């Protein structure tokens, strides 16, 4: 199994290229948004998410219950403190068992204004598959936790361990005649609850 | 200022009025223009077919022929770009300095008029609806206008000049700078795609209400004219220099059929 490794490294080393320095980003040249929250909401809605503004976690359930899709009889799991579901991950043996999930309620770490993406690291969920296998996804986010763009997002992330994903809108496809259909393999809908004000 | 007129071979042979118009416009501004008749072709057909060895002597001839002029002006973005953007590798080892001189003094016609002669307005009116075809090499190599792919603002030189012709109405196709499908030998080697591309351009300009399609490159227009005449469409083609020189809109209509 070491064969390919040596061949590739030998090939690469047999051709020395003049060094080119890694570029340093000039942050002055990057886009600036006057209102991060407004930009985030615009972007999130552009990618098909629904954004709700709430004062606290306590008011989320009421808003959810007004939604046509939401029904407390369905299978609901939550990893958000103060927002209980009816499905407990503690009995789960394999990720396949999450296939019955109708709703998954999670917290996002921070959002990105330019594209509506939300950072969800593995430690916000019981199993990362929950993010993708649920029919409907709810992400709770503090409005103070917004970054303007991906450069700032990665700077904020710094070094992290394990798995993490940026989620921007519900899953979608346009593979059939370029018609956009929400709900490909992942969640059909994404509701974002923004709590409080921007920093 | 002595200007050497660099006339693409197909213009010399098939559209002499384009070269005459170019000459006339330049002379109107008091430019002293010469046509060195040892010139033939810049070598682009060979280079674009991959035959660099056959194109190289053409490049060397160009340097010889135009070395004594202050400027070289050419009514074609494509042939100009051949000289300014694609000759480099012919002079890697020998003749680098001579080539650099040629490169720096070679200008496409609209570029030369817009940047050096800076006309305030043209005298002869052209009371027609004109669609501007942005020929690819003028656009994406010489950057004579705004490229729709690039998020950088660029002056649209041809549009600026046309706006100074009395009576002329500029109309815009929806795909503002799509290729017409000429592409030199591409027009023959990939005739089916080439024709399909030309057809789209024509339909787009017709939709915009153009009576005349103009461009800085007659080769694109030759291809479109071929399609238009076969289909007996009333849409006419004219090189930009012909409009600026005050030619009527039927100037290029082929008389072959009637004789």
């Amino acid at each position, binding site marked *: 199994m070491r064969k390919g490794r040596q061949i590739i490294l030998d090939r690469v080393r047999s051709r020395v290229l003049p060094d080119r320095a890694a570029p340093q980003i000039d942050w002055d040249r990057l886009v600036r948004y006057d209102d991060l929250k407004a930009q985030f909401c615009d972007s999130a809605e552009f*990618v098909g998410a629904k954004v709700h503004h709430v004062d606290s976690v306590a008011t989320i359930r009421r808003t959810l219950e007004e939604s046509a899709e939401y029904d407390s009889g369905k299978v609901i799991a939550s990893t958000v403190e103060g927002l209980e579901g009816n499905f407990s991950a503690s009995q789960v043996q394999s990720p*396949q068992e999450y296939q019955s999930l109708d709703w998954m309620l999670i917290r996002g770490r921070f959002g990105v204004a330019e594209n509506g993406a939300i950072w969800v690291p593995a430690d916000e969920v019981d199993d990362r598959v929950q993010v993708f296998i649920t029919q409907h996804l709810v992400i709770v986010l503090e409005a103070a936790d917004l970054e303007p763009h991906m450069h700032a997002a990665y700077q904020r992330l710094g070094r992290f361990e394990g798995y*993490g994903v940026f989620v921007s809108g519900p899953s*979608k496809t346009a593979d059939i005649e370029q018609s956009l259909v929400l709900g490909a393999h992942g969640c059909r809908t994404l509701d974002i609850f923004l709590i409080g004000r921007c920093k | 200022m002595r200007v050497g007129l660099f006339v693409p071979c197909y213009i010399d042979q098939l559209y002499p009025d384009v070269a005459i118009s170019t000459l006339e416009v330049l002379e109107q501004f008091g430019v002293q223009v010469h046509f060195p008749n040892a010139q033939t072709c810049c070598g682009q057909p060979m280079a674009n077919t991959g035959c660099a060895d056959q194109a190289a002597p053409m490049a060397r001839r160009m340097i010889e022929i135009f070395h004594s002029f202050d400027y070289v002006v050419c009514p074609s973005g494509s042939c100009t770009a051949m000289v300014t953007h694609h000759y480099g590798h012919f002079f890697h080892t020998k003749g680098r300095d001579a080539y650099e001189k040629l490169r720096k003094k070679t200008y496409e016609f609209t570029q030369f008029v817009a940047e050096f002669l800076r006309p305030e307005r043209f005298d002869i009116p052209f009371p027609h609806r004109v669609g501007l075809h942005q020929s690819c090499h003028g656009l994406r190599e010489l950057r004579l206008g705004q490229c729709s792919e690039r998020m950088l603002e660029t002056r649209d030189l041809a549009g600026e000049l046309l706006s100074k012709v009395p009576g002329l109405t500029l109309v815009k196709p929806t795909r503002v700078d799509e290729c017409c499908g000429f592409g030199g030998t591409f027009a023959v080697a990939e005739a089916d795609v080439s024709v399909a591309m030309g057809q789209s351009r024509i339909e787009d300009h017709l939709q915009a209400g153009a009576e005349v399609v103009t461009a800085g490159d007659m080769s694109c227009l030759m291809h479109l004219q071929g*399609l238009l005449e076969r289909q007996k469409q009333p849409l006419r083609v004219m090189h930009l220099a012909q409009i600026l020189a005050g030619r009527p809109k039927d100037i290029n209509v082929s008389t072959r059929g009637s004789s």
Partner: protein
Amino acid sequence: MSATVHHPEAAKEFVANSERMQWHDMALWFVRNKRDLQAAKTPEWEYLRELAAEIKAHTQANLDVYLEEFERQAAARGAVVHWAADAAEHNEIVLGILQKNGVQRIVKSKSMLTEECHLNPFLEAHGVEVIDSDLGERIIQMRNEPPSHIVLPAIHLKKEDVGNTFHQHLGIPPHISDPKVLTEVARGHLRRKFLDAQAGITGVNFAIAETGAVVVCTNEGNADLGASLPPIHIACMGIEKLIARQEDLGVFTRLLARSATGQPITTYTSHFQGPKPGGQFHIVLVDNGRTGIRDSDQFREALNCIRCGACMNTCPVYRRSGGHSYAAVVPGPIGSVLSPAADAKQHHSLPFACSLCGSCTDVCPVKIPLHHQLLAWRQEIARLGHLPASKRLSMKAASFLFSHPRLYSIVGSLGRLALRMTPRWLLYNRLNPWGIEREMPPAPRASFRKWYDRERARQNPLPVVSSSSQQNMETQP
């Protein structure tokens, strides 16, 4: 080896169905338009392109260092890193992992690399069920067709075609063509496959040397389900997918989806660092000709490619000839650069399937000078002797003619005379591809040089050009 590809013939077939050709053109133009809107909303767009190209150049220059660093970091996080010099070794490695774990059913998300290595038929021949999980890829897999686009693999199909395919393969009632309904059908079908799979294979969009992370971008969520449900995740990547630093992702995640589909970012941008708890994570690094491209000053930048497909969407030839006309794993401008690198003879017509309009170069988010590379390939193909004799000889003749101005002038006059005198039936026939749908250009009696000689030459004598220097020119080798 497959037969030599002749693009013009395949294109002719595609163009012949004019209605479908125009539909295909507009479907892709629609994507190009969405890309324009997103790029225009990003004021630093051109700056990002520059940064992306610089990052790639930096990584290429230090590739050995970064490959080893990546291996070290990925291994430290629990991944198993494999190296494959070519497609065969890659396929063997993947099969080896599957066999060792007794895997018989896998789901695979989009990966042009595994397409390039022909992994599916290889695994199937060894009794492994491979299900492509991207909707477009699943559709063409059922139809037993290759993808016609790297981002939109089924863009050549109409919704009715998809309905038919699902009717045949999934047993849905006939004549269903609503994309929503069809997508729902595929969701149900693939859900079962995801739940059943014993391993998931994904492609890789970016791999980060300093962290050992593998980043996968999708809209459907298929890569993420495939990498999260089964216990084994195998990520297959070309070595050019490597970038040095995590912060470099800021540049690429901003460019990729905007260029590809006109979204500000893909729905899911997954960062895999090590296996999930209790699982296995394998990364296969593949060369398969990439170091050869890296060796070439002319073509190296082709390795910048992030497989966004923007060059296809903008290419006026691709839009009107369809992806299958290229008979290559990657079609369109970037494919016409990469395919001859793999086999110049087989793919010799591809660099000529281009009008040299240059739109691909300007649209490319990583600044690959695509149309210059296509031109360079034409020279390579001529040098290697793969140019058809007709082209070679006519260019030799032209060069001779253009080196002799007087002869050129005489031949020009004769040509114009012939053009004027030749009867239509003789002028317009199948041997004249120009004239099949186009009139020949006008044939004026006098050339410009004749006119100039008559009207201007005397009152406007040439300043220098001596006859001796002309002589000199004409006798040059």
